[in-house]
Structure formats: C-alpha cells, structure tokens
C-alpha cells in the first residue's frame, strides 16, 4: 500500500510539474532561394557537404551556430525555427562570398540570396553515345582563380553530386577555363557494369570546382538516362 501511495505521489508531482517546464515548440521558419544575379536562375547545389546557411541565434552567449542545408535545385526551407533575431550568412558555398545579415524571423519568413556563382556551366549536354555516357559543356567562370576539376557524377538518386555519387569521372584542370572551349567528360559503361547496371536508370550531373578555399562545386541540372 505504501508503495502505491509513493508511486501516486511521484506521478502527481511529475505531471503537475509538466506545465511549467514545457516551452512552446518552434513556430517560425525560414525559406528561400539562391538566385544567379545575372541569369535569374536558381544556382544548383549539393544536398550533402554543400553550401550551408549559418544561423546564429541572438540572446545566447556563447552559442553554437545552426547550419541549414540547401536542396540540390538551389532552394532551402527550415520550417522549425524559434522566432528570434538571427545573424544569417551562407557559408562555404559555390558562389562569391556574401556578408552576414541580421534577420528577425517570425512566422514563415522568406529570404532569397542573390549570388554570383563561381562558375556557370553553359550549354550542358549529357547523352549516351555507343557504350559511353558523354557530357559536353562550356564554363564561364566569375573569379580569377583556376578551375580545379570538372566531373561527371552518376547516382540512382536525382540528388546526385560530387559528394553523393555511385560513380565519378573527373578531369583535373588546374587552369583558368577558356569560355570558348567545349569541355567533355565521359563514363565508359562496360567497365563500370557492376555499378551502373544495364536495365536501370541513373542520374548524371556535370560539376566544376573552383580553386577557392572551402568552395563547393557548381553544377548543371541532373539528367536521367536509362542504361
């Protein structure tokens, strides 16, 4: 009997304290796009190990920053943020660095970033020629640095990219790109037949990496091809 009373007491105490302890859940959110300043198009991104948006919530010191990831198409959306003022800055991206900005976030806030991508991948074409997948494209770089590498990345998932791939074919350029040159990268199908299996469809995406510290690759949209 004593036990039961004790348990009841604990239960009563535990539940009665609930109300006071509970804060409201996050109600605000932030979403938006990365837009190319010149073309007005979305800037293609990586879903993993890509551009991130660093958010430092005000009112706490020290505070660990939060990092929002960006979708491959260049949009982002975090619908679970606490309403507050934040210092917001995209970091380690594939475009010329932006300054941070202070942003009060209440309700569903929208913030688009207008950016200059390090490299634009122009007239991208990925097609199957015989037993090869051949990608051709031109590069228009916006900074003076060298282009480190260009590559063609393959994955069964549409969010393919350099960090997320089953297979990559890369060329190290280590040179400033020539806007007039048509670059090409190819994947040989027979020698990769255990990775890219006949009868399946895969996504192929062209990428190029600028030689800037912490930079991420710039991409053309992924293309689906049946093998």
């Amino acid at each position, binding site marked *: 009997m004593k036990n039961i009373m004790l348990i009841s007491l604990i239960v009563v105490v535990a539940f009665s304290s609930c109300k006071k302890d509970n804060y409201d859940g996050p109600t605000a959110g932030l979403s938006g796009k990365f837009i190319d300043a010149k073309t007005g198009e979305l800037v293609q991104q990586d879903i993993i*190990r890509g551009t991130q948006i660093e958010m430092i919530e005000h009112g706490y010191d*020290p505070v*660990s920053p939060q*990092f929002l990831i960006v979708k491959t198409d260049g949009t982002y959306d975090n619908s679970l943020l606490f309403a507050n003022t934040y210092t917001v800055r995209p*970091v*380690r991206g594939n475009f010329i660095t932006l300054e941070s900005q202070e942003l009060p976030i209440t309700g569903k806030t929208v913030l688009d970033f207008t950016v200059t991508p390090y490299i634009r991948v122009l007239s991208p074409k990925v097609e199957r020629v015989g037993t090869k997948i051949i990608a051709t494209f031109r590069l228009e770089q916006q900074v003076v640095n060298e282009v480190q590498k260009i590559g063609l990345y393959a994955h069964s998932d549409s969010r393919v990219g*350099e*960090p997320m*791939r089953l297979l*990559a074919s890369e060329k190290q350029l280590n040179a400033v790109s020539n806007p007039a040159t048509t670059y090409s990268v190819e994947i040989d199908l027979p*020698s*990769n*037949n*255990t*990775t890219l299996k006949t009868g399946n469809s895969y996504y192929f995406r062209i990428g190029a990496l600028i030689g800037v*510290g*912490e930079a991420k690759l710039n991409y053309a949209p992924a293309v689906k091809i049946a093998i």
Partner: protein
Amino acid sequence: MKKYIWLCCLATFNFAGCKKILDLQPTDKIQASVIFGDPQGVKIYMANLYFQLPIEDFTYFRQGFNQNGGDPNNGGFLPAMVTDEAMHTEFGDFVGDNDFQWWDQGYKLIRDVNLLIDVIPTLDIDATEKAALTGESSFIKAFAYFALAKRYGGVPLMKTSQVYEGDADALKVPRSTEKETWDYVFELCDLAIQNLGTEKGRRASKWTAYALKSRAALHAASIAKFGNLAPLSGNAVTQKLVGLEASVANAYYKLSMDASQAIMTSGQYSLFRPTPANPTEAAENYRMIFQDPNGASSEAIFIKGFTLPGNNQGHNYDIWFQPAQAANGWPHPGRMNPTLDLVDVYENYTTPGLSSPVVTTVDGNTTDYNGYSAAKNYIRYDNTNDIFKDKDARLWGTTILPGTNWKNTPIIIQAGYVKPDGSAVIRTKDQITIGTETFHTYGAASTSQYSGFDTYGGNNTRTGFSFRKFMNQSGPIVPGWNQSTTDFIEFRYAEILLNYAEAVIESGTGDVTTAAKAMNDIRKRAGHTGDIPLTSANLQRERRVELAFENKRFWDLIRRREYHSQFNNRMMHSLLPLQDLRALPAKKYIFVRVNVPNSNPRTFEPKSYYRYIPGIGSNGLVQNPQY
C-alpha cells in the same frame, strides 16, 4: 519525534564545534608535503603522471587513452581502421566528431604536473635531482601540450598551477594562437633537453625529449606548409587559434631536423639488425622488434611497458587481432583487416622505388574492382601467397598473408572457388565434390580451421589479410580481458631517421646525402640492396610501410592535410583468393581485387582536421570551425 530531537541536538553540537573539527587534517588523504618530501613519494607521483601520458599505444582507441579497465569492450575498433591501413571485420565507422578527444584528461595531467613543478624548488634533494625532476616534468608537459595542439590547434596555456580563490571566472584562460601553442611545446622540449640526463631507461631522458621535439616540430612544420590545401574559415581562423602561416614552415622543419640530428650523431642508437642476409630474415627481424621491444634496445628510444596482465595493466591486442585459427577459445578474434590499399604500397624487390599494386590478371589492370568474371584472364598461382613472393619483407612481418604460418599453423584465408564450369562461389559457405575430393569455399570445413571471409562471429578477415606485427607468437592466447603484456615502443630510431629525411626533403634545406642514407638504411634493414633517391613520394611510402599500425598514419594524413583528398568517397579494397577448380587436378589459385565487402565509401570532412573543444558553454572558449 525523539529521533528528530536527537538529530537537532547532534546538529547543534556539530555546528558549535565546527571550527576545531575542520582544523584537523583528513586522515584519508596524503598531504602534498608528505608525498613530495620523500623521494619515494615523488616516484609514486611520477608513475601516475607517466600513466596519464597520452601515448597512443595498445590501449589507445577512439574513446581515448588507457582503454584497458575492467570491461574494455570496444569491439577492437582501432584508430588504424579510420585510415587506409585497415578495416574492422564488422564495423564500417569513420572519423566521428567525438572520437580521439583528449581535453579534460589533458588539463588534468597538466594540472598534476604543474603541482609537481610548484614544489620542486622546496624539495630537500640535491641540485642534480632537482634538474632531473624539472626536465622530466617539462617533458611530460610538452608531451601533453603536443597531444592537445595536434587535436585542437591553439589551446589555453596553463604555464603555472592555478589557485581557486572563490571566483571561477578568474580561472578561465583564453586560447592562445596555434603558433604560440606549438612554440610553447618546443620551449618545454628545450627545457627538458637541458635538464634531463642521458641515461636510458623507461623514464624520460635527453633522447626521449629530442625525439618528442623531432616529431612535434615535424607536425607543426607540415601544418604550416600544407595548411592551405584545406583552408578553414570562422572566428577560430581569424583569431589564428587554428592554422599556421606558411612562412614558419622552414623554421619548424629546422627544429625537427636539429632534434633528429642530435639523436643520430649521439651514437646512442642504431637500427636493430641493419643488414639481414635475405628478406625472410628481414621479415622476422622486423617482427621481433615489436614482439619484444626490449630485445631491440638499440632502436627503441622510449618504451611503455605492459608488465602484468590485469585491469589497467595489460592490453587486448592479442585477443582482438590474432587470426581466428589462433583464437584458443576467445570468441571474437581476427578483427584486424589490413587493406589491399596498404599491401599495394609495399615495394617489390624487383622494382625498387615504386609502390607495386598486386597484379591478378594477365592484362595487369589493377584498378578494376568490378569483381570476378569468367571472361577475365587471371594469373594462376600454386598457392595463396606466391603472388606476394617479391614483396618487401615488412609486408610479411606486418601482416599474415594467406597460407603463411602463424604459431606453426598455416593460416587459411580463402574467399571461395571457381567451379570447373567457370562460375564462382564467393563469400558463401559451400562445398563441392569433384571425383573423390571435396573442396570448401573457405578452404576448410569448419569455422575453427580457417581465418578468412566467413562472417561467422565477426571473426574473419574481409580484406584477405590478417595481422602479425605486435602479435605475441610465443604462447597461446589467454582468452580474457587485459591479458597481453607486449610492450609498446613510443619512439624508435627508425622514426627519427624518417623525420629527419622528411624535414630535409620538404624544407629543401639540410644535408640531402645524410637524409637519403637515413631512408635507405631503413630499406636495407628490410632486405633491399640498392638505394633509391630521396623524394617526397619515396619518403612517404617508406613511412607508411615502416611505421604501419604504429598509430602514425592518422596524424600523417592530418598534418600533411591529405585526409580530405585521400578520403573523398573512397572505398577500401580487398584481395579475394579463390581456388580455381578449372585447373584440376592441379591445385591453382587466382586472386580478385574488389571493394571491401559490406562497406561504404568514406569521406573526410575538412573540419575534422581539428577536434571540437568540449564545454564552450562553461569555459567560454572560441569553438573550432564548423562545430
């Protein structure tokens, strides 16, 4: 009620008597004056400091140092298994944020050594002994700050012990820059070198202090030289808490070079058995260094002893890593899987100066990891280790190759067979009877008779190689925790030679002839006969094969900023030995290069070049980038 009255009374009495009672000295603690007043007391205190020394030995795992307490069950997942040296039989983990931390323990050791430094001047001992204590405590402190600097970059420097006077905030020390931290390490090394004697033993000496400086300065110089390969950004970078300017590289290389040279010209050390008659002898000599470092005292500069079996004393290398056939009742042996990637790095005697990937097919393609195909033309071998016949002796001394002997037992590592019709059965338990003879996929019938590829118990290699270096061959495994007593060499002469050669080649200064000789002397000890030129690539290959599994590779990848480029969606590789039954009645084997079965690609995040600093909420320190 009565009870309460009693309690009240007691309380009253207690409080009334407070002052005098608390004035008594506690009887369950030893006073500083007692322990430091007696040379034996200092010795005991010193033993505790050495125990805390961050030596990456057989008890060092990703959870930290001294993982040999009561139940040290971490599955045998070694730091080497997040490098390109090895895989674990079961786990596919890679470098995690919480791995290899050494923060609280580091500052605990530094506090303990600072307390000792405080009392040295007051001790009733002669000046020589005082100098020795000063040198020894400086060595320990330098060792501790090196361990912190390579993990965290610039850290708070506690140059003297702190006294708590009621204000916790007054005790908070901000981080120094990474450069100041490294300079402090070298300052402490110099203090140790000045004060320590030349006597060899298990404790710090002038030579161990030189060795520490040689290694630490090479680390710092490499960060300065290669830091721009993996630039980071953020507050810690702008405040120079992480990273070094490229301009300081050569000064640090010089520090390393000079420290190495002091050991090399001392005449105190030499390579163990430097001129073997043949590669077989070289392999055995090499293995002997690690099975009993005390027998190689000309080479071992600093040994950490594991004298007794038991909790916090012995270690677990033998139970985790000997091949399954040697288990002797231990349920989970065989968990070290040296990778094909490492095996490929070793030179062939016929092609000195070149990494020699294992060639399995007539066309010589060593980049095809698509697996077995009946259409490919494989080279047939008479047994499962003929394919390595020409390889550097150290491969034979480091790994157990398929079909080689261990404790007088041939260790059978076989992944399957190719049936006479050309179809293969790989990594599946199966058997086939042809004529009167029965063949088993794993080379034998039962799990106690082979050591490869069967996933049974997580006990067999999945790369095709098992482990020999550091393993005790002289007796059967004692199947229990913390029973191994093989000693560990923290500093050995070969590393000093390699440090010297690297400092010369990377800085472009110093004596190239001596440096090239240093590298080639090590190769000759391994049975090579000719010299190869000193280049950065040759030197790094030499480091990988000579120091394999000594917990150096992880830091080499870190300090040379190669981790993120070496590990970008990287698969590790295995070599599958298959019996080719198409060749019957002849007994022939073929080999297939494949990705390690059941493994995932690995990518190193540049932020992992530094560990995160724990507890910034209370210690108020600037966090490292991207944490």
